């Protein structure tokens, strides 16, 4: 067990794949990010130079290339860059990747792994701040992985590449530097198993990706006020661990969802709807969605912060839901 960051965790997995499968390929415009972490990537890049591809800036086609290759059994880790750069590939992902298996009666499989970085960048402005979990979740037919801890990233990424289904791995752009305990050995984490990051009896905070860290910070503040929050890290959206969410809400009776994506039809909406539908009896108060405010992101940190979900907003929301138990009609 060593303390590693995202980039390390990714390298662990990609190295394992390169070693065990001589045809494994890594492709991307700037594979492990283009910031400092690109340096960590250096040695790996040299060692496997012949199996690392830097495609032209043409996301629609190189994602289709990954899909077509996967249909022939090719395993590949494809990095599409920041989330918005996956939009030119949206048709490929939604109309080809997601539908191939079902549309062929199960005869064609697409064991491809796509990776994008999402999130607010403190001034990334209107075109570099996307968190499209909701949009992709509305596309049926792709597994969606949204890890936060580097250790989870390692196990989930390993599973994603082994999976015979197309998998979209969404990490936070600020995640690369995030450190955490990462087991050295080779391991997989099954999809559909959320993780209780913190136990609590008063309110359940459901989150994914970096919102897990923000939720943990909020939980600490709430604890000081005597409110014990249970924090759930979804880890994967498809499949979704509904059980974990419903069990927790059954225990706490209160639900707050933290989502860096936009409010409407986002992850927070889906979790709130799912609990309202299947955990209605457990709810002692309305669920609260703390998501990105519905607007494109202005290019300055001040206005960005206004739109962003935060520990403060989570604390306020948790206080409110725990505080008032509204009368039932």
């Amino acid at each position, binding site marked *: 067990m060593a303390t590693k960051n995202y980039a390390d965790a990714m390298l662990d997995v990609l190295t394992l794949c390169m070693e065990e499968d001589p*045809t494994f*390929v890594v492709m991307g415009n700037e594979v492990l990010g283009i910031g400092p972490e690109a340096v960590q990537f250096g040695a790996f890049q040299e060692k496997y130079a012949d199996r690392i*591809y830097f*495609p*032209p800036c*043409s996301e*629609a*086609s*190189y994602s*289709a*290339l*990954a*899909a*077509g*290759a*996967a*249909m*022939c*059994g*090719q395993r590949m880790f494809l990095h599409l860059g920041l989330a918005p750069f996956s939009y030119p590939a949206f*048709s*490929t992902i939604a*109309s*080809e990747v997601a539908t*191939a*298996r*079902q*549309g*062929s*009666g*199960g*005869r*064609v*499989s697409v*064991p491809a792994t796509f990776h994008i970085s999402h999130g607010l960048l403190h001034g990334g402005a209107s075109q570099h701040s996307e968190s499209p979990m909701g949009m992709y979740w509305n596309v*049926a*037919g792709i*597994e969606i992985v949204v890890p936060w801890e580097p250790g989870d990233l390692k196990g989930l990424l390993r599973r994603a590449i082994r*999976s*015979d*289904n197309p998998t979209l791995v969404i990490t936070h752009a600020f995640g690369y530097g995030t450190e955490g305990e990462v087991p050295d050995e080779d391991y997989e984490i099954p999809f559909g198993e959320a993780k209780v990051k913190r136990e609590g009896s008063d309110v359940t905070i459901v989150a994914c990706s970096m919102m897990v860290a923000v939720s943990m910070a909020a939980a600490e503040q709430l604890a000081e006020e005597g409110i014990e929050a249970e924090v759930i890290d979804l880890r994967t959206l498809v499949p979704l661990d509904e059980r974990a969410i419903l069990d927790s809400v059954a225990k706490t009776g209160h639900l707050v969802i933290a989502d860096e994506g936009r409010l409407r039809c986002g992850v927070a909406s889906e979790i709130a709807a799912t609990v309202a539908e299947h955990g209605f009896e457990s709810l002692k108060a309305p669920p609260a969605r703390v998501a990105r405010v519905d607007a494109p992101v202005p290019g300055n940190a001040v206005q960005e912060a206004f739109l962003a979900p935060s520990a403060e907003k989570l604390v306020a929301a948790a206080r409110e839901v725990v505080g008032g138990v509204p009368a039932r009609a």
Partner: protein
Amino acid sequence: MTWDKAQRTAALESMLTIRRFEETVVGLFLEHEFMTHFHLYIGQEATGVALMEALRPDDRIATHHRNHGHVLARGADPKLALAEILGRENGINRGAGGTMHMSDTDRGFIATSAIVGGSISLATGAGFAMKTQGGDAVAVGLFGDGALEEGVSYESLNLAALWELPVLYVCENNSEGALGSAGGGFPTSVSAVGDLTDIPRTFGIPVETVDGRDPEAVFDVASKGVAYTRARKGPFFVHVATARYAGTQPLWPTLPTGETDISMAWDDSGVSGEHEQWYREHDPVLGYARKLLASGDVTQDELKEMDARVRERISEARQFALDSPRPTPESALDHVFA
């Protein structure tokens, strides 16, 4: 290299099989046996048949919405293909693909995409896999001239050229005489590129144009392209020129030229009217039949027997499809994920 007598007659029979199949599809639609829009391969039979002859069983293919002829030419059973179009449980894709997505993986079809630009880009990926995984199998991408209007097609040609991928791009340009918007249809080939072959050429991809009515010509060009890309020299582009069939309009094609009368191959009397030019010059089935009659490869009687054989086969397929069970509703979720 040209075909011997056996190959020629086999090719003609295969073309005729596709023709009778498509005529049957129109009938089934008119009888409301399926409801969605569809596309006919009529007029392009020579291309599918000749191309598949030039391929090996282990080569991979991605095709598009106009796929019936490709799947049949590659040897798919008309029974299963018709059952698929009718959405039946025992169809090629368990009825989940329907007319627009027949993907016969046993015959190397990796995908059949009805999104314009889909097949050309997916085939590029298949080529990447063929190269990465060793061996000398190649990938084939079948698409129409309209696909060259989508940006993803340019991107794909760039990728294939950059990485010297073993991909044979086959563009079936059926826009000569296209109805286009005038007929309430899709205005295809809306391109400022006068000669579409300039597109692959821009990326340094060798390209050849061939007459889509002549299966032997298509076979020779396709074989040349396959040999080139199989030798790992990079991608090759085949531009097939075919006249657009008069019945080809979205959403619901028709049979303005009627059910094909094979006797027109030797008996001129009925060849007249609005579609005379089609019967005389464009129809690849009649055209090739005339050629084989002239060369003595087949006789009138043999042609009649062939037609009877094909009709029999297709009507059996039709009955098989109609008798086939529909999938159960719940099975709709069986194949979403592996």
